């Protein structure tokens, strides 16, 4: 639960959330619902989930700038393993 | 459904063989993966039997296509030989009749079914010239017209082949 604090803090601070980029180790959830909710709360709207190299690759669009990010989630723990900008 | 002409059959069979091969390879891959995953079961045994059947079907398809191609090529070769032989027969007969070079050309074109106007256009001559040449050709051949001219060679090819009861048709 501790890892979710930074995200909820950002959410609480600003209604129109500026994008707080998840860092490696942040727990987003082990189901698409929880991960989508967590990412949306952080300011990134999820486009798709795909299997990639044993992880879940979440593609989301930053609501504020429209930039697309690839967030890799460990399906067992729900934690972020890699963050990449989609080029 | 109209049966495929002999020209089209190899192509159709080749397409079919490719589809068979795709099915076989995909199925064998899947069955092999199941086998290696260690899930031995009635289901797996069934899969392997199907895979075997598909492979046999594919082998059979290869044999059939091979045979079809060979038959077609044999036919083409025979046809080419026949064509060549016929051309030789015609050429020899023209020589026999003593046709001039121009008459030989006109004679071939007439046998191919071109009419006077077409022959004239092809050779760049007047229709009257062609008509005169044809008359000379028929005279040398001892025939009364174009139909008999063509019949000369048809009869030659038929040999004893045509079974017509001429006597009763009097």
């Amino acid at each position, binding site marked *: 639960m501790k890892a979710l604090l930074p995200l909820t803090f950002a959410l609480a601070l600003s209604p129109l959330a500026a994008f707080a980029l998840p860092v490696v180790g942040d727990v987003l959830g*082990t*189901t*698409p*619902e929880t991960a989508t909710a967590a990412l949306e709360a952080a300011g990134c709207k999820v486009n798709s*989930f*795909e*299997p*990639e*190299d*044993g*992880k*879940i690759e979440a593609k989301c669009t930053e609501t504020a700038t429209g930039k697309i990010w690839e967030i890799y989630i*460990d*399906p*067992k723990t729900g934690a972020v393993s890699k963050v990449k900008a989609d080029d | 459904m109209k049966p495929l002409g002999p*020209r089209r059959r*190899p*192509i159709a*069979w*080749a*397409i079919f*063989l*490719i589809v068979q*091969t*795709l099915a*076989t*390879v*995909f199925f064998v*891959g*899947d069955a*092999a*993966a*199941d086998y*290696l995953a260690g899930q031995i079961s009635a289901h797996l045994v069934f899969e392997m039997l199907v895979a075997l059947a598909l492979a046999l079907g594919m082998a059979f398809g*290869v*044999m059939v*296509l*091979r045979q079809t*191609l*060979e038959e*077609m*090529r044999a036919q*083409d070769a025979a*046809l*080419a030989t026949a*064509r*060549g032989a016929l*051309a030789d027969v*015609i*050429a020899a007969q023209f020589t026999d009749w003593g046709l001039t*070079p121009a008459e*030989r*050309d006109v004679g*071939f*074109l007439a046998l*191919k079914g071109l009419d006077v106007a077409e022959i004239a256009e092809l050779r760049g001559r007047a229709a009257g010239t062609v008509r005169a040449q044809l008359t000379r050709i028929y005279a040398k051949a001892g025939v009364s017209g174009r139909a008999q001219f063509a019949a000369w060679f048809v009869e030659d090819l038929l040999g004893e082949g045509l079974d017509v009861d001429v006597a009763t048709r009097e």
Partner: protein
Amino acid sequence: MTDLASSRLPRKGQALPSWDPLLRLAHWGIAGVVLANYAFTKEGGSVHIALGWAGMALLLLRLIWGFVGPREARFASFPPNPMAALRHLGGLLRGKAPQYPSHNPAGALMAYALWACLAVLMLTGLGMSGLSPFARADLEAAVAEGDWSVLVEEDGDAEGESPYGDVLEEVHEVAANLILILALLHVAGVAVESRALRRNLLAPMLITRRGRKG
């Protein structure tokens, strides 16, 4: 004296190859699959893998055909011969080279080179995606349904990680790029030879030559 007869009858023994339908379909099929996977499909995706399997099936078929097919399709008709290939290329420069009923020696080398690279490409692809053509599709379908547990192996390691994965990926990429270069060379070669020797080498690979060998 013009003998119109011989100019109208089918020309004897035009020694250009007469490729059978299966050979032609395999040729263009493999080319299409490789091009699609190089340029259009998502790497590692289910479509990419399915097309790769199709290419593998076509290559396998061509391999079988090289042993039991019609004469010009058999490997025995165009054995690899680097010296002969060089001589052939030299002949091209002089504008004079013999006609072959099957691949000419240079074309033969190109065919074997391409097939070797294709084999490497497909084997490395298999190594990465596994023995079942449907595994990736099943995975994608499960994740699309919302089931992430399929990615979790029982012993705790996430599925899909392989120690050889990186090496296989590298070799796969190198093979793909090599094939692209060879393919461009191949197209250029066909064009150059057709021009230099005034022969249409593309036609036999494209259409059935009627009334010839078929």
